[in-house]
């Protein structure tokens, strides 16, 4: 990611942590938090300003607070639902695998947007293309990205509003095509950036990036 104005981002990070960055500016800034550089700035400010943290006497909250949390998270069913969730995840993975590997080449769709995920212009790892106004995604491996064993690279849309939306795991070789879901197309509308995070094999267990975000790449018209 090219940070055009480090000083400005550092100032925004400071006011974000202090709490004086409010409203739309705050929400807009939160979208930058997927960038490792910005997250590092925010982390540093969190450490600096921790010195302002007051010493307070503990106050025990009423029992209804816990009951509310338990109800919202359905914790009683957490264990069983974990198993069910794993089963769902496994079938989704199978489906994704099937789409990636078994799908015959689609009719020619024209690339409408592009992003290159690179260390520098000489080292491009993946070329990502959105085809036919976000109907399909095509990812081509140009150089192998280093990766620890037991890990995978996951591609994310950074939507105009809200959380990152997964575009699935990035291939380690060749070219992959994926038909985009309605949810993915909605997230791409107006989106200007894609991101890559390091996740456990099989992808993020939470549906949001859990590992470090190692690349943020701008989407540009093809």
């Amino acid at each position, binding site marked *: 990611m090219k940070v055009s104005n480090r000083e400005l981002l550092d100032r925004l990070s400071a006011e974000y942590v202090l709490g*004086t960055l*409010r409203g739309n500016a705050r929400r807009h800034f939160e979208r930058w938090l997927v960038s490792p550089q910005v997250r590092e700035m925010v982390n540093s400010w969190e450490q600096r300003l921790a010195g302002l943290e007051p010493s307070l006497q503990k106050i025990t909250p009423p029992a209804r607070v816990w009951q509310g949390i338990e109800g919202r998270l359905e*914790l009683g069913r957490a264990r069983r639902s974990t198993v069910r969730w794993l089963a769902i995840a496994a079938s989704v993975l199978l489906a994704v695998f099937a789409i990636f590997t078994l799908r015959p080449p689609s009719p020619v769709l024209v690339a409408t947007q592009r992003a290159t995920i690179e260390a520098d212009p000489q080292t491009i790892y993946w070329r990502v293309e959105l085809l036919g106004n976000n109907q399909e995604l095509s990812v081509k491996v140009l150089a192998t990205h280093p990766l620890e064993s037991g890990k995978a690279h996951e591609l994310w849309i950074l939507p105009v509003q809200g959380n990152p939306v997964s575009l699935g795991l990035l291939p380690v070789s060749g070219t992959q095509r994926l038909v985009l879901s309605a949810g993915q197309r909605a997230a791409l509308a107006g989106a200007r950036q894609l991101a890559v995070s390091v996740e456990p094999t099989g992808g993020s267990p939470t549906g949001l990036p859990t590992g470090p975000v190692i690349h943020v790449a701008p989407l540009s018209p093809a």
Partner: protein
Amino acid sequence: MLVSPCIRIDTGHVGFTMERNDPLPPEIELAQLLQRCAARDPVAFRALYDRTSPILFARLLRMLRRRSVAEEALQEVYVRIWERAAQYEVHRGRALAWLVTIARYCAIDLMRRERLTLVGDDALAEVADENAAEPGAFEKPNHFDDCIGQLSQTTQHCLTLAFVEGRSHDEIARLTSNPLGSVKSWIRRGLISLKECLSAERQTA
């Protein structure tokens, strides 16, 4: 990344005050509980709640003033903690600071949603007068007191109102009867001076 020697020294050396003051839970224990939460262990989540909710509730009350709002915020905070436990990076330490930060950001979000504006001092009455100091509760960066002491009293007051009470620029201007522009620039310059001082002290240390 700095670890948190301060907290460990406090709980280690002043053992006799531990019972009296009901100490903060050890960082290492919180970090382990968070890891188990990331693995979706509801027992660990409950233990984490029991150990930390009185701290976070006090912190939220300080910002949100009203008990009903602070209770709602506390629910939201623990829902976020459960959902984001996997994002806690164990190697960074500072588990309690991580939790408090989630609570602060949540309170700020809630203020916006509820359009909570400056409430009169009467609302402070809802916060029981039990804000006695609990020394050594949070790790301060080295030389923090020296560096913050170099700022003007007014700037220190503005920073405290923002960070501790969650006040916006507008509210700080009204509370301190100062022009908004001055408040913004004191805060901005205060933050820059603080950063410069802390990094200079670190280099000379």
